[in-house]
């Protein structure tokens, strides 16, 4: 299995009156089809690490390779284009746009990418929702759905442009046990069935136990799990 995501000596510091090191010299490879869990205490820097992996934040030092491409010299718009085509995000909060239906939310990344026609986009959005058991909910607005359903819509949205890498930040943090189990299973299948690289930050030991590999972050450094 190929390495799709690689970071080397990644450090992220916040400068200011009191400088803070969020991520301290971390190196990591993630392969396609691999499900990696990142755990650690609150404030340890695991979410910061995920944002760096997801090109949402820029490292103070170190590099990110995505599919063998060094993203070091890229500008904001180029990074946005990479996120659009190659990365899918799932956050603790579903972050669905409240004025759009479930299907319209899933369509947004595809419309922005503009590779498919409008009718193809509609069909694909409907299929993604149906695959996650939300075929009936496609025309509902976020406020008409439960937390678990909304989070699954968010996963469908993350999958819209068929990314190789899915990054999840506490995806089950706001969900009840049952919904949480469903979401965990979906994420696992994305790695093991679809062959995507899935990196999830979690507090939940049960969720971490599903992963192929668990990384523990303490004080911004990788620690032995």
């Amino acid at each position, binding site marked *: 299995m190929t390495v799709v995501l690689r970071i080397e000596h990644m450090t992220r510091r916040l400068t200011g009156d009191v400088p803070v090191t969020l991520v301290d010299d971390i190196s990591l490879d993630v392969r396609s089809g691999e499900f990696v869990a990142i755990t650690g205490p609150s404030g340890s820097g695991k*979410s910061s690490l995920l*944002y760096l992996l*997801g090109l*949402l*934040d820029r490292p103070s030092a170190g590099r990110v390779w995505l599919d063998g491409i060094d993203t070091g010299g890229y500008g*904001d*718009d180029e990074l*946005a*284009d*990479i*996120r*659009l*085509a190659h990365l899918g*995000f799932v*956050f*603790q*909060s579903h*972050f669905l*746009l*409240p*004025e*759009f239906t479930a299907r319209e939310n899933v369509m*947004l*990344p595809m*419309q*922005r*990418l*503009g590779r498919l026609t409008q009718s193809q986009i509609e069909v694909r959005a409907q299929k993604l929702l149906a695959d996650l058991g939300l075929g009936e909910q496609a025309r509902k607005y976020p406020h008409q759905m439960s937390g678990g359903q909304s989070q699954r819509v968010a996963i469908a*949205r993350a999958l819209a442009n068929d990314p190789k890498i899915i990054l999840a*930040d*506490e995806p089950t*943090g706001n969900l009840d046990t049952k919904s949480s189990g469903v979401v965990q299973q979906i994420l696992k299948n994305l790695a093991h069935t679809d062959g995507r690289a899935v990196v999830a930050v979690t507090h939940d030991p049960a969720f971490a136990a599903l992963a192929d590999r668990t990384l523990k972050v303490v004080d911004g450094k990788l620690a032995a799990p």
Partner: protein
Amino acid sequence: MNTLLISIAVKHLLARKRQSVVSLMGVVLGVAFFLAISTMMLGSEADFIHRLVDNTPHISITDEYRNPHRQPVETAYQGGAVEIRSVKPETETRGIRGFANILDYLRAIPNLKASPALAGEAVVSFAGKDVAISLNGVLPAELATVSTIQSYMTDGAITDLIANPDGIIVGSELMRVLSLHVGENITIAASTGQIHTFKILGVFHTGRASYDQSEAFVALKRVQSLLGRPNRINSIIVKLADPYAARDMAARIEAHIGYKAVSWQEASEDIMSTLMIRNIIMYSVVSAVLVVAAFGIYNIISTVVMEKQRDIAILKSMGFHAVDIEWIFVTQGMVLGLIGCATGLPLGIAMMLILESFKFHVPGSSDPISLPLDWSWYQFVIAAAFALVSATLAALLPARKAAHVQPVDIIRGAA
């Protein structure tokens, strides 16, 4: 892609219908008032200029020179410090010399009508009263084409002077002062001492009391003989098809004939600059209405940007560029501006029509008057452009702020 941004923008506005409508009303009223007020101001200006242009010659040529003759020594030593003392101007017979040639020259210019006149001072004596008047010797048939005096005639016509060379046309005020009636004879003494009796053929009433008392029209030949200046004139009245060409035309005529040619703009320069100032004030006031409306738009879009931080963050993390986000919010301003124009322009037209239908009485005037209104396409263009530009600019500031939202800051805080 663009339709995607527009659909997001429209959904944002629809999600806040009430605020959107309120800020929209600002633009609608701004555009409508802009149209209504500028229509009234332009109308009154046009009305004013119309009266000014109609009642004065577009260009009047007099037997004067703008500058005194140059002395030969000044021509010989140009730029030198020449001083000549006790210069006595050459004695000249007053009047425009070679006026027949000048008239031929003027009449060769297209869209221009010219008529010669000789004016002189005279005294009307009647029933023991003496009233000083200005006696205008004119060619009646030509005067009718260059002056509006015919439209002020309450009795008779200016052309009646053709049939009766001893006739006179006087103003209503002179008739009142001397208790005269049409058909009566009056005796006029010219400054030369000659006396002649005229028959009153017609009366004009312009509404300007001094004019109605002191001006009188008779046949040109009669005045020339009364004043002892046969075959002379001292002014030429010029009327143009396009009154606004008067300034350039006057300069051209003056350069050619040498005599002073004064356009109506030059003669009424003070009034023209007053009108200009009035226009500036008007446009400042009505623009202020639209600026206030722009603040309304700024307000709602700032609010939307504040409320939509999470949406902005997720769109950016998803892969939307900063410029996409900026467009979403600028589009909202443009949509408000467009709908504001689309609603405000018809409302403005409705207001114009209502204003036009108003009739009211001015104290001291017998006829009801309506507001003078004037509109042209460029008012609509200015109103629409100003509304669109101000709405877009008002949206631009919050939109820029939205574009610079860092997704990580929001996602970290919201988690």
